[in-house]
């Protein structure tokens, strides 16, 4: 969130240099068991994290840079790994269990690395019998004549099997990205034909003219729309709805703070409701799917919606308590007329069919990402969206998510993620404590960083806790992932926390301290709710 004009601020310049330094620093430090590829991965991770924090370049640019560095430095076809293979040789049997091996293969701790399969080695202890220049004679029961002994134990292919570069590039066509593309195109068309505004008009009408119910209506409608559209576009639209109401208030009336805050809160919280509600959900779902814990559109709603509803009702009560309404009634008049042109009607049909197919995924079993191509294809086939509309899609967000997914793949693949969680006794922490810590860390980070970035940085750790098994039986990958997604969306204490917050703050109606006061309470209550749901409710609705 910064303007594109002008030069870099001192913070950005600091970030630029720190980030570049971060890329090389893993090669300057002794990092114990981290493989060479892990060091590259760590460099990319540190650089990305610093760039995302200080924003010397836009955050989507960092994501694209991550993918570029990964295909360049980590992929099988990049200059680092093309034309290389792990140097191995077979031992020469001199007598029973006594072998002659190249001396370079013997490591300082008297072990040998034997390649088990591609990307995997096993350390075998040996007893040195005799050193003989180029060769060493060792004895071992575990060696056999066809053991593939690694002759260069420091080689960059030890314990690393590079992915094809297409795996990193392919993240842009990851099913979850396609799901978002479908959502983006529906949203684009909705804005074009004013469906979002007209829906708001209809949905708000049952809430009458009493201020406390108007605010409830505004929050529910905002949440419902942001569950399917971008939180930001929803917040911008709702701001145009509340400004005329605020105009009816006396200048000193504090109720306007509540009105203006209700929009970003509901937009942020509403995004939790569905997989396409907000980008952090995509990062989490992509990572979970990669590890066999896919979650359907329907199941996500079953998991998330009850929390969203409680959160919204709590926020409603909180706003009314902090900023009680002063007038008896409001005149809520949203201008607009339902567009009944053939194209608009086409949109309504496509919109309705897509959403229906999404939320009933459990009944018919067609994956939501496949359904997402229905609006993609139908909206352009019917000329409901034009070429310029397609160009207007938020491609930056798609790249941001793709970069996040790609970073996660690299961190897992290089062993970086497992290395990062090693050295801490996670098992002693206990599952509930772990959920609490992840929730707290995610909310805290996400208040200052982009929600998507927070999910990107935390998700590989969650996956590593799963694959390494350090947490034991009690660990539930699916629920821990959901905790991350939900917690990232519950950070809203500062104007920079989310774009909807920035929009609400930019109206000049609210003060930072009001936003902080409400946001901190929501964050704390949110973490408590997450904890309660992950202990009592989510285990019931996930397998």
């Amino acid at each position: 969130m910064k303007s594109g004009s002008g030069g870099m601020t001192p913070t950005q310049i600091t970030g630029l240099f720190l980030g570049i330094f971060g890329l090389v620093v893993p090669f300057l430090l002794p990092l114990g068991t981290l493989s060479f590829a892990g060091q590259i991965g760590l460099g990319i991770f540190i650089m990305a994290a610093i760039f995302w924090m200080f924003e010397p370049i836009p955050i989507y640019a960092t994501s694209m840079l991550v993918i570029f560095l990964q295909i360049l430095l980590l992929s099988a076809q990049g200059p680092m790994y093309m034309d290389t293979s792990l140097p191995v040789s077979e031992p020469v049997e001199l007598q029973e269990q006594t072998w002659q091996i190249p001396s370079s293969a013997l490591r300082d701790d008297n072990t040998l690395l034997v390649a088990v399969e591609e990307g995997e080695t096993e350390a075998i202890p040996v007893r040195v019998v005799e050193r003989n220049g180029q060769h060493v004679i060792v004895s071992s029961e575990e060696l056999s004549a066809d053991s593939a002994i690694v002759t260069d134990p420091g080689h960059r292919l030890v314990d690393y099997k590079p992915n094809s570069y297409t795996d990193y590039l392919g993240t842009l066509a990851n099913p979850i990205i396609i799901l978002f593309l479908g959502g983006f195109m529906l949203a684009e068309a909705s804005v074009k034909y004013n469906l979002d505004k007209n829906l708001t008009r209809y949905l708000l009408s049952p809430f009458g003219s009493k201020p406390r119910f108007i605010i409830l209506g505004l929050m529910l409608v905002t949440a419902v729309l942001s569950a399917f559209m971008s939180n930001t576009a929803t917040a911008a639209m709702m701001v145009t709805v509340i400004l005329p109401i605020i105009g009816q208030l006396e200048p000193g009336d504090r109720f306007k703070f509540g009105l203006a805050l209700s929009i970003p809160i509901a937009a942020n919280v509403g995004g939790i409701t569905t997989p396409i509600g907000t980008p952090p959900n995509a990062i989490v779902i992509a990572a979970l799917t990669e590890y066999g814990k896919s979650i359907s559109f329907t199941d996500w709603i079953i998991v998330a919606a009850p929390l969203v509803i409680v959160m919204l009702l709590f926020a409603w009560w909180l706003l009314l308590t902090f900023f009680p309404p002063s007038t008896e009634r409001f005149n809520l008049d949203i201008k607009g007329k339902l567009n009944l042109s053939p194209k608009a009607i086409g949109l309504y049909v496509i919109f309705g069919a897509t959403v229906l197919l999404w939320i009933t995924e459990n009944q018919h079993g067609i994956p939501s990402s496949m359904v997402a191509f229905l609006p993609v294809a139908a909206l352009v086939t019917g000329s409901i969206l034009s070429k310029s509309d397609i160009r207007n899609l938020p491609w930056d967000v798609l790249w941001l998510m793709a970069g996040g997914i790609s970073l996660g793949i690299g961190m897992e693949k290089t062993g970086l993620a497992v290395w990062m969680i090693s050295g801490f006794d996670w098992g002693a922490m206990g599952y509930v404590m772990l959920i609490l810590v992840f929730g707290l860390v995610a909310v805290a980070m996400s208040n200052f960083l982009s929600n998507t970035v927070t999910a990107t940085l935390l998700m590989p750790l969650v996956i590593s806790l799963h694959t390494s098994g350090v947490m034991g039986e009690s660990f539930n990958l699916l629920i821990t992932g959901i905790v991350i997604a939900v917690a990232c969306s519950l950070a809203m204490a500062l104007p920079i926390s989310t774009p909807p917050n920035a929009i609400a703050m930019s109206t000049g109606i609210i003060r930072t301290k009001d936003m902080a006061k409400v946001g901190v309470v929501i964050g704390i209550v949110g973490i408590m709710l997450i904890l309660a749901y992950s202990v009592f409710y989510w285990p019931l609705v996930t397998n």
Partner: protein
Amino acid sequence: MERSDIYILCIEDEQEVLDAVVRDIEKLEEQFPIETANSAEEAREVIQKLLEDGKKIGLILCDHILPGENGVELLIELQKSDDTYPAKKVLLTGQAGLDDTVKALNEARLHHYIPKPWTREELQKVAIDLLTDYVIEQEENILPYMGTLDAEKISESIRTRRSVSDE
């Protein structure tokens, strides 16, 4: 409020009138610095200087009668220049004849015509409306202008243009 690099230029030969114009739109000055000129010649110099410093001109309020020159001619000239073409142009006038008015509309693509005397509210509203259009047309990040300018129009533009996206 952070100062932007978008300037308001007021061109008026009578100092009291110029002061009145500046006073009437002073609440915009926090974000949009105001520059003044007493003649067309001075206006050209000011514009030249601002453009050299990498600044932009968002709004030009110009008197009809300037010493030795016609305000309408100046506005036409600025309309034809690439640098000042995007600026919103307002003609302040006591008594412009039909010919001049038509010329201003057709050739200077005048955005607003304010007859003297004007009220502060009127001038403020015109300035806010036109600067809102200017930032929506010219600026990439329009959020910072929401507090000073027309917030409803700017949010509407965020909604349709997606200049701010979810992160």
